[in-house]
């Protein structure tokens, strides 16, 4: 009898521990007098190290320790998602991707920062495009859930030694009828890519995103798509006739054409592969997020460092320019105590000041602060900062509604099928994509049949 009772007690105890803990990480004690430390989650990359530096300065000023916990990019979203699932408080703030905003807001994971950002005058300090895409949800609502932290977007790196070579310049002008220079339009970029594609010399014109796994090829394509006047949706979230419009088709055809001038083996390429083909001398131009350009400015990594130049996205047929948004905004976890929320807001308020934003930029972070972006010190700090500051005025993003992951999947599949698989036409690929996206949006109740 005693044995049975003991066994049952052990079982009940273990089950109770498992269920009452709600599978969550152990909550950290909050000091009664106030908060003495803050935890920020971010992906594992250089900007997170820079944020830790800034956090150390915050600790020196206030005594509140800031710890930036880093998780590899591949598992970052999964880790944050798992924490959301248990409504955990393992982090106070999270530097989340722009596309997460809708999902996080609809599920109640982020604290509404509208009043905080407006009353402290922070909304006016950052570029409107970054505030809209990193922080605002729904779009156009004027409701904000994140402070634009690491501004980022696609830009270009190019080999100045090739562009400024007199023989290349003369040959290019003779062939295309205009001087070889930084391309102002996508057609010019295509011409230059074609001109520098010399397989016999192991040189190719351009490196573009093609990775099928998450969102790379979609981001690469939308640079052209937006500039060509196309979009992912209309004002009512309809996709049929929008994403497969003639403008989008022309943009995809051009993206597919660019892939013809890309180095062999870049069939599943993202930021690492872009820098690799540039560093090993295979590509005359590469697209990449600005966050990955610092390594090209390192002579130990990039043998062409002294002749590497940078430029912002070229324009479409109507002169419009857009760049696919990267980067992240910082948000406050809604599952922490009110004291910790206030402490987190205090940190963001401090972080958003022009002085700290200037420091943030100085240590290597990509600020979205208008004043800093326009400062001479920032523009001349690195060879790519000028292109970055220019880009931050015309960034645009993919869907950021909670269903963005469902919409991203067919986008990746159809774009890769056309660009890399090489089967069918751009119209067929975009028709298929629009059809599947339409079905998803109807099934999810975003639009009606």
């Amino acid at each position, binding site marked *: 009898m005693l044995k049975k009772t003991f066994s049952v007690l052990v079982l009940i105890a273990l089950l109770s521990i498992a269920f009452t803990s709600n599978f969550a990480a152990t909550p950290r004690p909050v000091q009664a007098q106030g908060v003495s430390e803050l935890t920020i989650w971010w992906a594992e990359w250089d900007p997170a190290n820079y944020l830790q530096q800034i956090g150390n300065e915050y600790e020196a000023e206030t005594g509140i320790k800031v710890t930036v916990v880093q998780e590899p990019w591949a598992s970052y979203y999964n880790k944050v998602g798992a924490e959301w699932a248990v409504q955990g408080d393992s982090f106070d703030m999270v530097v989340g991707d722009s596309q997460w905003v809708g999902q996080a807001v609809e599920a109640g994971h982020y604290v509404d920062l509208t009043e905080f950002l407006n009353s402290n005058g922070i909304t006016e300090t950052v570029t409107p495009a970054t505030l809209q895409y990193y922080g605002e949800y729904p779009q156009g609502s004027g409701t904000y859930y994140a402070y634009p932290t690491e501004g980022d977007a696609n830009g270009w790196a190019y080999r100045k030694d090739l562009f400024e070579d007199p023989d290349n310049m003369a040959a290019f002008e003779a062939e295309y009828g205009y001087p070889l220079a930084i391309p102002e339009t996508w057609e010019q970029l295509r011409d230059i890519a074609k001109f520098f594609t010399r397989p016999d010399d192991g040189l190719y014109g351009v490196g573009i995103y093609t990775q099928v796994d998450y969102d790379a090829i979609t981001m690469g394509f939308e640079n052209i798509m937006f500039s060509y006047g196309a979009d992912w949706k209309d004002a009512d979230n309809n996709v049929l006739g929008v994403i497969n419009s003639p403008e989008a088709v022309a943009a995809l055809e051009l993206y597919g054409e660019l892939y013809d001038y890309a180095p062999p083996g870049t069939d599943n390429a993202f930021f690492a592969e872009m820098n690799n083909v540039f560093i*090993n001398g295979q590509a005359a131009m590469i697209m990449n997020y600005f966050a990955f350009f610092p390594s090209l400015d390192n002579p130990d990594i990039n043998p062409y460092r002294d002749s590497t130049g940078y430029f912002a996205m070229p324009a479409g047929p109507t002169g419009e320019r857009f760049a696919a948004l990267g980067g992240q905004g910082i948000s406050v976890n809604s599952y922490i105590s009110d004291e910790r929320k206030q402490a987190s807001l205090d940190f963001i308020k401090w972080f958003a000041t022009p002085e700290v934003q200037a420091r943030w930029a100085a240590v290597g972070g990509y600020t979205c602060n208008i004043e800093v972006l326009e400062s001479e010190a920032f523009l001349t700090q690195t060879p790519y900062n000028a292109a970055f500051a220019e880009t931050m005025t015309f960034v645009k993003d993919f869907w950021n509604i909670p269903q963005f992951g469902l919409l991203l999947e067919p986008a990746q599949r159809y774009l890769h*099928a056309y660009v890399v698989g090489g089967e069918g036409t751009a119209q067929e690929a975009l028709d298929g994509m629009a059809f599947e996206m339409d079905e998803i949006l109807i099934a999810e109740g975003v639009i009606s049949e």
Partner: protein
Amino acid sequence: MSSYSHPARRRHLGDKRLIQMFIIPTVVLLILMNVFPLIYSLYLSFTEYSAINPTPPKWVGLDNYKKVLSDNLYWHNFAVTGRYALISVSLQMIVGFGLAMLLKEKFKGSGLLTTLILVPMMLSPAVVGAFWKNIFNPSFGIFDQFLGYSDPNTAPEWLGDPDLALWAVVIVDVWMWSPFVMLLSLAGLSAIPDYLYEAAAIDRASAWFQFRRITLPQVMPLLLIAVLFRTIEAFKQFDLVMGLTGGGPSLLQGTQAVNVTETVSVKLFRLAMPPQAQTGLSSAMAYVVLIIIIAISNLYIRALNKVREG
């Protein structure tokens, strides 16, 4: 005094008590870590639910199963996995058993050679995927050069060509896991009594006859175990695909684009994890995979029993 207290303690820790003390924690852990998730995920498979959303699961009956079993894209994933498992396991059996036949006779350095052949299966699939990705690169990889292609512009793009990508994954899997089949085969071969071959030799049986009537039947139980293990593993293939191709390249088949190396496990991962995080649907798909694996395992076990009885 102590001589009296010692037997008293032993009386308290009787055999039954000891057994319970060891078994109960294991049973509790098993219930918490295996049985409960299994039952809970079965429940979730009948619901519309996202683990990253606080909205509670909504009962949708068989809708998730209907979607998995009626959507062309899911059938494509099952077809890719089936094709991959069939080709990969078949080649592993041929290569692994062939290597075992070559290595069954001892010669100088055979031990070292056997150990070296076993190295690939000791590596992490993620690492194997990463370095084979470089090996397959047409610009600087050695695979195309090994095949005689010196010009990267005309060399096959193993990971980017929809016709070759699945073969590329198969090649790496065969390279990695044929040694496992070889190991099991060697164990089977070394257990065959010599007198069977001696008797066959006295009867002037040919080498082919000896192989067909002695070697193969004797090794068959272990070969079937190898087939069983490798088939189950092939159906779970994830790491190599993610490391090599990420499920791509994509291909337009009719009006629909499909990922040519996206196995069910890769699809399952994408469904279950953010940004999709379709927990209910992915649970249903996981159960379909589980049923398929159980069915295939049963077929193999029946075949194994027949061989043993026969």
